[in-house]
């Protein structure tokens, strides 16, 4: 059947998951169906922006009639399928998998700025793991901090492959791939080049997808207010609370504001994390807006300007060759006087207003209203002309 916007309707299928009947479009994976029905299946290598990968094995589920366990993220759901997402065996396997990952991971979360948002930590908490029973070789990689934006600490890498896949599949650049094999396998750049010597566009998609603290945004790591943010996140991890709940418990306003990027016309959605009236971090909300969680270098890292100490903070009036700080009343009165005089002497059309394509719709509306209703001319334009 063809829908009103020209698309073809997609067939619906039904599957049973943990005794619940779930419906969804044909072509969905078991995980898609479960998510739509709010049924939890743990994952680590899954990111909705990318093709399924099936490597972490946490999402393995029992499917009636199938040979062996199937990865829910990868397996296509078929009409009439019967799925069990949790059994004693599955939970034991999941626990073992997390214990194996933790056997090669720093167990002390204090000091890692991903604490509180780390998918591995979440799973460790979920399965009540404080220590791994598997003791053996642990990697000791040197951290990569060669460029201003992306930090890589592969000691925290869990080989989910998300950084590699997002750079290749979504960004279409492919700066990373796995090198070496087996226990020694690790992501890397070609010939271990510094990232600024690769075609990397510093979009930060790898940062946005990394489930652990292996890849971080360097501009958002630091001291002061960022340490306060991290302490709070650690507390969230310790008390097993979400950030929203913690902020509520502490009687604080949510420190995350959702807004629209101020750069180009794509209109990506951003989350600005504010502490102490400064933007401490910028993240991209997943699967939202035209960006769907992806940004570019400007959208991800270009916000130093907000808190720049070169920001204008007071009106300035020219006195000869220099500017002198002034009060708002003086500045506005001066403008009103001058414009009024010119309007009277030369006519309203001797005045021109350039509005801002960077400002909001509301601002722009007021500018053209002012120009037309108050100054009395249609001499209003903006940089669309350029």
């Amino acid at each position: 059947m063809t829908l009103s916007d020209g698309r073809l309707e997609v067939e619906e299928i039904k599957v049973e998951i943990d005794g619940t009947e779930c419906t969804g479009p044909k072509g969905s994976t078991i995980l898609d169906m479960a998510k739509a029905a709010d049924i939890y299946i743990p994952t680590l290598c899954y990111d909705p922006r990318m093709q399924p990968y099936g490597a972490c094995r946490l999402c393995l589920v029992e499917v009636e009639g199938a040979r062996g366990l199937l990865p829910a993220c990868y397996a296509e759901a078929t009409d009439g399928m019967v799925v069990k997402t949790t059994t004693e065996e599955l939970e034991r396997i999941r626990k073992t998998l997390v214990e194996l990952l933790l056997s090669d991971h720093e167990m002390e979360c204090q000091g890692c700025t991903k604490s509180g948002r780390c998918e591995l930590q979440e799973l460790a908490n979920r399965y009540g793991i404080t220590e791994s029973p598997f003791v053996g070789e642990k990697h000791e990689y040197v951290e990569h901090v060669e460029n201003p934006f992306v930090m890589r600490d592969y000691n925290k890498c869990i080989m989910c492959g998300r950084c590699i896949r997002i750079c290749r599949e979504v960004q279409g650049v492919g700066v990373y791939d796995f090198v070496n094999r087996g226990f020694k396998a690790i992501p890397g750049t070609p010939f271990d080049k510094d990232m600024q010597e690769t075609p990397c566009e510093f979009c930060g998609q790898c940062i946005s997808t990394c489930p652990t603290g292996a890849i971080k945004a360097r501009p958002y790591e630091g001291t002061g207010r960022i340490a306060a943010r991290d302490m709070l996140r650690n507390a969230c991890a310790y008390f097993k609370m979400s950030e929203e709940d913690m902020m509520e418990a502490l009687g604080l306003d949510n420190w995350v504001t959702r807004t629209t990027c101020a750069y180009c016309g794509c209109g990506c959605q951003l989350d600005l994390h504010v502490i102490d009236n400064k933007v401490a971090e910028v993240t991209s909300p997943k699967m939202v807006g035209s960006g769907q969680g992806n940004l570019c270098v400007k959208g991800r890292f270009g916000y130093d300007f907000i808190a720049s100490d070169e920001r204008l903070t007071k009106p300035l009036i020219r006195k000869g060759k220099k500017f002198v700080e002034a009060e708002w009343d003086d500045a506005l009165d001066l403008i009103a006087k001058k414009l009024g005089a010119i309007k009277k002497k030369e006519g309203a059309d001797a005045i021109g207003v350039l509005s801002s394509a960077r400002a909001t719709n509301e601002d722009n509306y007021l500018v053209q209203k002012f120009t037309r209703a108050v100054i009395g001319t249609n001499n209003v334009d903006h940089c669309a002309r350029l």
Partner: protein
Amino acid sequence: MTNTIDDLEEANAILVIGSNTTEAHPIIGLRIKKAVMQNDCKLIVAEPRHIRLCFYADRWLQHMPGTDVALLNGMMNVIIEEGLYDKEFVAERTEGFEELAEMVKDYTPEKAAEITGVAADDIREAARTFAAADCAAIVYAMGITQHTTGTDNVVTVANLSMLTGNIGKPGAGVNPLRGQNNVQGACDVGALPNVFTGYRSVSDAEVRKEFEKAWGVELPSEPGLTATAMIDAASAGDLKAMYIIGENPMLSDANIHHAEEALNKLDFLVVQDIFLTETAELADVVLPAASFAEKEGTFSATDRRVQRVRKAVEAPGEARGDNEIIADLSKRMGYEMANVEPAAVMDEIASLTPQYAGISHARLDTGITLHWPCPDAEHPGTPILHTKYFTRGKGWFCPVPYKAPAEQADADYPLVLTTGRVLWQYHTGTMTRKSEGINEIDPHGKVWISLDDAEKYGIETGKEVVVSTRRGEIDIEAMVTERMPNGVIFVPFHYVEAAANVLTNNAVDPVSKVPEFKVSAAKVKAK
């Protein structure tokens, strides 16, 4: 855009002309890449330089700057000649096909090849690929609008789209990529000399009456000056004062020397901005404004998606929101603006703008995605335009002939200079050049020149050179690269210390009044 950013990835073919999408609109670039990498979309890129997007292209048409009409007319010639056009769509939804066919008859692939420099067979294959696709989208940006033939370029794009029936369905459409975060919105809400909100003419008495009623004051009926005309008027002594908000013509206008001279001639200049820009340096009064992170409001993205802007931090010092400043100034000039709280202002916009009638902060705060037109509060928005009919009813073919750019290469200035953007910086660098990381990765601009031209003019990568045009000259580092065609050089316009617009030509398109940033005659020599 007639379509949305989202449905671009559903296209079976995409023609990108005049857009360096992966650098200027990276997120839209991702959609195009996804279409190519995952959905078998055929990408045709028409672009003088080898931009990154070319790596994903099935076909790269390397045409000379300013020859877009010839190229597109050539493609239409093939499509009509070989009967590949959408006969049903043309018959039912358009007018003027015969005139179009008559005009493009001349533009055989061979003729187009002569003008553009693209091989005739490449033009043929590109035309066939585009026409054969079920849904084909055209994406363009300032690469074709910043010409003296900008309007011609755009109507030709529309011709091609209508000819192949690619309007009104997902994965198709005519899609200009608006450069700024709210240039779409600024246009929508009437910050233009000839229209009120919703693109309704100031000369239309009925419309004017509506606004006069809403605002309680008589309004001027003559269309006003465009930005480029304002500069010319200032230079001529006719314009005496300017109030410039959030714009930096001292770096972004074509022919900066002319702009500088014009601004200096003004009796009175007010600049309202977040930083002391190059333009603000010339002002009589500078007003500190709030940035996007310090105000509430909405932006309209390039695909007509109206989205919320929310206050995250307090403005520094005594900086104020633009709305407050305007209202205060207005009051001091005798006109009291009732309520300038952004939500209320949006309600006022909605009451006067049919396309925005159903849009409000409250609705947007529920998380709904709204593309205008949104005629009432229940309406879900309109992702795709012209699904059944055009605004005027039937689409009208406007065939146009190829016209050369205003200034072409000659004996004195043998190279064509084209300007544009790089991924790292944004426009005049007001915001991006405050970023430590970006400055580290991209400290300064470079002039791109081909290997042959470099040899001819003694230019070496990494060395300072002087690029000059009839309007001025700049010192800039050279980058010799295979990515440039012979006869063309490229300078990005972000860097004040090597300002490309010192060089550019402020000749404008007769209809849109947009300057010809993309073509001027230049010469280059080692320093």
